[in-house]
């Protein structure tokens, strides 16, 4: 069983988590062009690599960010969104 490290609850079995997709910035709906908005709604960066993703520890409802290599499935680190490295945390 694969283990994921929840920033609040510690290491837990992967089956306790749900995947929330890549962390993405929403463009301002009032300012975005149709093409930019369509790109945000539908398109995904599905090229393998290291990505920041939303994950949820389902049994406690904790949402957090995991940095994961989507080619090897190795999780480099996990942290709460408010503690994102590089954001002064």
């Amino acid at each position, binding site marked *: *069983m694969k283990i994921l490290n929840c920033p609040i609850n510690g290491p837990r079995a*992967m089956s306790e988590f749900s995947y929330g997709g890549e962390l993405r910035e929403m463009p301002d709906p009032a300012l975005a062009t*149709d093409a930019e908005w369509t*790109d945000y709604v539908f*398109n995904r*960066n599905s*090229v*393998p690599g290291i990505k920041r993703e939303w994950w949820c520890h389902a049994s406690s409802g904790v949402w957090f960010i995991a940095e994961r290599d989507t*080619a090897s499935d190795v999780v480099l680190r996990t942290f709460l969104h408010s503690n994102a490295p590089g954001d002064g945390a």
Partner: protein
Amino acid sequence: MFTRHERLKSAYDVVIIGAGGHGLAAAYYLARDHGMTDVAVLDKGYIGGGNTGRNTSIIRSNYLTPEGVKFYDESIRLWRDLSQDFDLNLFYSTRGHFTLAHTDSAMRTMRWRAEVNKHFGVQSEAIDAKAVAEAIPMMDLSCGGHGSPVLGALFHPPGAIARHDAVAWGYGRGADRRGVEIHQDTQVLGVELEDRGSGPAVAGVRTNRGRIATRKLLCAVAGSTPGVLALVGLRSPIYIHPLQAMVSEPLKPWLDPIIVSGSLHVYVSQSARGELVMGASLDPYELHSTRSTLDFAESLSMHMLELFPFLSDVKVVRQWAGMADMTPDFAPIMGKTPVRGFYLDSGWGTWGFKATPVCGKTMSYTVATDEDHPLIRGFAFDRFARYALTGEKGAASVGH
């Protein structure tokens, strides 16, 4: 069985990336129906080594949207003649296909699918639990009391299985004999674009074995599609999740039809060798890898035993995975793209094997004429920008 070519030529009329069923079928029909034989099929691995050899080999056309039903039904017609066409036994075996319904809302969906199917001349009917019990007497309709019992099913008599490797070999051999070059161990590293006055257009490809000039490039690479799209500067809604499958040890023949339960995440058929070929739902998160997991084998076995408790002593002998290129509306992305001369056969997710012949037919037409074939116009690359999604909820491994 195939001609081995020492080196790539410096130019081809058409280059196809991906020597799986789809790519080889397109090459075959380009040569046979359109007289285009100056074609190279490139694969970074070996013939049929991707999702062509990793699916559970089920063929059916009981989809939900008119676009889907017409498209897959044409595929079934092509399937039936292929063994003759190839002079190769595909072990095409019509079994009948039962999609079990465990809830009232699932029964309603089955009736809906049956009506859409019948409207387009495809044999399908919604049947009740009694009819299911008569057709599959060895199945426990109460599901061991663990989940919702089976209330009925969508019965699709033309549902079939075929030997998937032989499909790639048959198309490959047929293309090879007509002059198409198949180059294995040949990876595309880059795509050269030029502007001939109407935006970006394909000029050539760079591979690990040298450069090739071409103005027509067909991408049929399933789970590797996003990487190839990045080479031509396109973005798409495709996302990649692994889809796993496994087989049991060989048993005496006891299961003739193909059984699917969306609620239990099970589909199963018995192969000509006697193995139970079993699949479930997509892995729950993005991954570009064909690794297998114990979680998958455990949960699929658990659900199999709910339907067939007498299998508790049967061993699982192999499991594997393929990378499914999923789309938001569970329909493929096919045809021309904003890059001139770059044609896409992608978004085949969990439902690509059954469509192999019709994809080859329609993509060869599209590549040869530079016009999208009428059967694939509902699957266009730009449908997302037009907010005109297809909504194919009859796809495999998809909860609905």
